[in-house]
C-alpha cells in the first residue's frame, strides 16, 4: 500500500503570530518556520503503518516556496520515502490546494491520503474534506485512532461530545487530530539518510495549474485586546463582585 502525506510549512507552533503594522498579513519575515503540527502527526502515523508492514511506500508532498523542501526533508527523516515539492511563491487557498493534491493523487495512486486536520496558520480545516469530495473517496476527519486491514480503514474520530468510529473503503482520505499519536524526533542517522532521499521539484503547471483566487484578504488585524481587571483579596469578595458588580451569578 502507498500512502500520500501532504505537509505544510507554517510559522512554528511556539512562535506567537504578530500582525504587520500595515494590516496586510502576519509577519513571517525571519520567523522560525516548521512543519504544521497536525501534518507531523499524519506523517508519524504513516511511518507507523510502514513499520507495521501495512504500508510499503510513503510519498510526502508540499506546496510552497523552495524552503518547503526543509519541511519535506523533516518528513523524510521521520521515515517517509520520497518527496514532491510543488514550488510556488503564492499562497494558494484551500480549494486550489485540494485541486493540486487531487492531481498528485491521480498521478501517484495512493491507497490512503493521510494529512493534518488543519494548518495552524489559516485554521481553515478544509483541504482534506475538499480533496476527498473532489476524488469521490470516503473521508474520516479528526482521527484519534487508525487501523488498516486489507482494503478497509477503521477510524475513530474526535467529535463534539465524544468519539465516533467509521469504516472506510480504501482509497480514502484521513485527517489527523492531536491525539492520534506523538510524533517522534528524527534520529541523527535518519536525518543523514534523509539527505539522500529524492525530492522532485515540480511546478503548479505540472499538476493542472492555479486558477484565479476566489477569496481576497483585505485586512489582517490584531484581535481586540482584553484588558485585565482587578485582583480580589478573597473568595468572599470574588463572589460578592460576581453577584453585584458583574451580575453573572
Amino acid at each position, binding site marked *: 500500500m502507498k500512502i500520500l502525506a501532504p505537509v505544510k510549512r507554517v510559522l512554528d507552533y511556539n512562535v*506567537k*503570530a504578530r500582525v504587520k503594522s500595515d494590516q496586510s498579513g*502576519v509577519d513571517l519575515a525571519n520567523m522560525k518556520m516548521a512543519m504544521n503540527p497536525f501534518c507531523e502527526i499524519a506523517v508519524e502515523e504513516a511511518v507507523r503503518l510502514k513499520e507495521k508492514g501495512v504500508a510499503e511506500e510513503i510519498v510526502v508532498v508540499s506546496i510552497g516556496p523552495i524552503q518547503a523542501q526543509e519541511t519535506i526533508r523533516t518528513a523524510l527523516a521521520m521515515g517517509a520515502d520520497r518527496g514532491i515539492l510543488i514550488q510556488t511563491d503564492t499562497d494558494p*487557498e*484551500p*480549494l486550489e490546494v*485540494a485541486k493540486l493534491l487531487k492531481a498528485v493523487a491521480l498521478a501517484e495512486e495512493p491507497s490512503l491520503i493521510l494529512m493534518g486536520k488543519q494548518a*495552524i*496558520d489559516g*485554521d*481553515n480545516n*478544509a*483541504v482534506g*474534506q*475538499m*480533496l*476527498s*469530495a*473532489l476524488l469521490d473517496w*470516503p*473521508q474520516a*476527519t479528526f482521527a484519534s485512532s487508525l487501523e488498516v486491514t486489507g482494503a478497509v480503514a477503521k477510524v475513530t474520530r*474526535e*467529535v*463534539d*461530545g*465524544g*468519539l*465516533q*468510529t*467509521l*469504516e472506510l*473503503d480504501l482509497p480514502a482520505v484521513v485527517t489527523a*487530530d492531536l491525539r492520534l499519536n506523538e510524533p517522534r524526533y528524527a534520529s541523527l542517522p535518519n536525518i543523514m539518510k534523509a539527505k539522500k532521499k529524492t525530492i522532485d521539484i515540480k511546478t503548479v503547471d505540472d499538476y493542472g495549474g492555479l486558477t484565479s483566487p*476566489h*477569496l*481576497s*484578504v483585505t*485586512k*489582517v*488585524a*490584531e*484581535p481586540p485586546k*482584553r*484588558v*485585565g*481587571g*482587578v*485582583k*480580589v483579596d*478573597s*473568595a*468572599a469578595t*470574588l*463572589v*460578592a463582585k*460576581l453577584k453585584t458588580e*458583574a451580575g*453573572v*451569578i
Partner: protein
Amino acid sequence: MAVLVFADHDNVTLKDNTHKTVTAALSLSGDVDILVAGQGVAGVAAEAAKIAGVRKVLTAESEALGRQIAEAVAGAVTPLMADYDALLVPATSVGKNFAPRVAALLDVAPISEIIEVVDSQTFTRPIYAGNALETVVSSDPKKVITVRATAFKAAGEGGSAAITAVDPGPGAPKTRFVSDELVKSDRPELAGAKIVVSGGRAMGSAEEFQRVIEPLADKLGAAVGASRAAVDAGYAPNDYQVGQTGKVVAPQLYVAIGISGAIQHLAGMKDSKVIVAINKDGDAPIFQIADYGLVADYKTAIPELMSALETVKA
C-alpha cells in the same frame, strides 16, 4: 438572495447553535430556510420552524444522515444549493466535517468559522488560533460558510415556518458507521453553557480534578472544561478541552482554576463575558485577561468559594 442554514441537532433536540447561525443568516438576507438532515427528525424540524424569521424548514432523512456522515450530508445539501446563494453551517464537528465537501462540489472556496458578517461578500474570521483576525472578500456566486456560533446572538422564537421533506441524497456507500462513544452528562453542554468552570494542570490528578472542579461546576449550574495540559495529563476527558484545538466557548462567566493561560487556551475562551482566574502564581498570563483574579492556592480558595456561594445563594 436566499440562505440555507444547516441545523445543529442530535436527531432529538435542536441545538442553540442553529438559532445563532440563523442570526448570522438574517444579516445576509430575509429569505432564510433551515435544513434538518438526520433520521426521525420531525420533532427537531418542529422546533426549527418556531425560530423567528425563518421562511421554511426542509427535512432530509436517511440512516447515513442520522449518523451525520459527511459524504451523505454533502450529498443531500449540494443539490439544494441550486436554490440558494449561501449555505451557513454552525462550526461544530459535524459542520466542519461536511461543509468543505459542499464547497468543493460547487467549485467555490469555503469560508471557515466566521465571527462577523461585514456585508454579503465580506466576512471576518480568526486565523493563527485567534491571534489575528482576517477580513476576507469572496467573489464566489454561492458562499459556503461555517459560523462560529458563540460570536452571534441566538435568534428568538415566534415563527411558524412550513416544513417540507426533500431528497436525502445517495448516502455514503463507501463509509460505514461502526459505533459512537458519547459522554453522557446532566451538566449543560460545554459549547453553549452560560457558565463554564475549567481546571488546569495544577489539579495534579483525575481524582483531584473531579473532587475540586465538578462540585463547583454543579453548584454554579456550569459546564466543566479543562486546559489542554489537564487533558493531555489524563485528568479530564478529551471533549472537555477548551482552546485552539478543543472547543471555543464564550459563556457569561468563565472560571479558570489552576490554569496558567497558555495562548492555545486563551484562544478558546477569551470572548467570555466575565473571566475569573484562580491561580497561586500571581504572574500567570491568565491574570492579564481576567476580569477578576484571585491569587491563591485552589486548595484553600475553592472551599472558601463554595461556602461564599452557599451564603450568597441562601
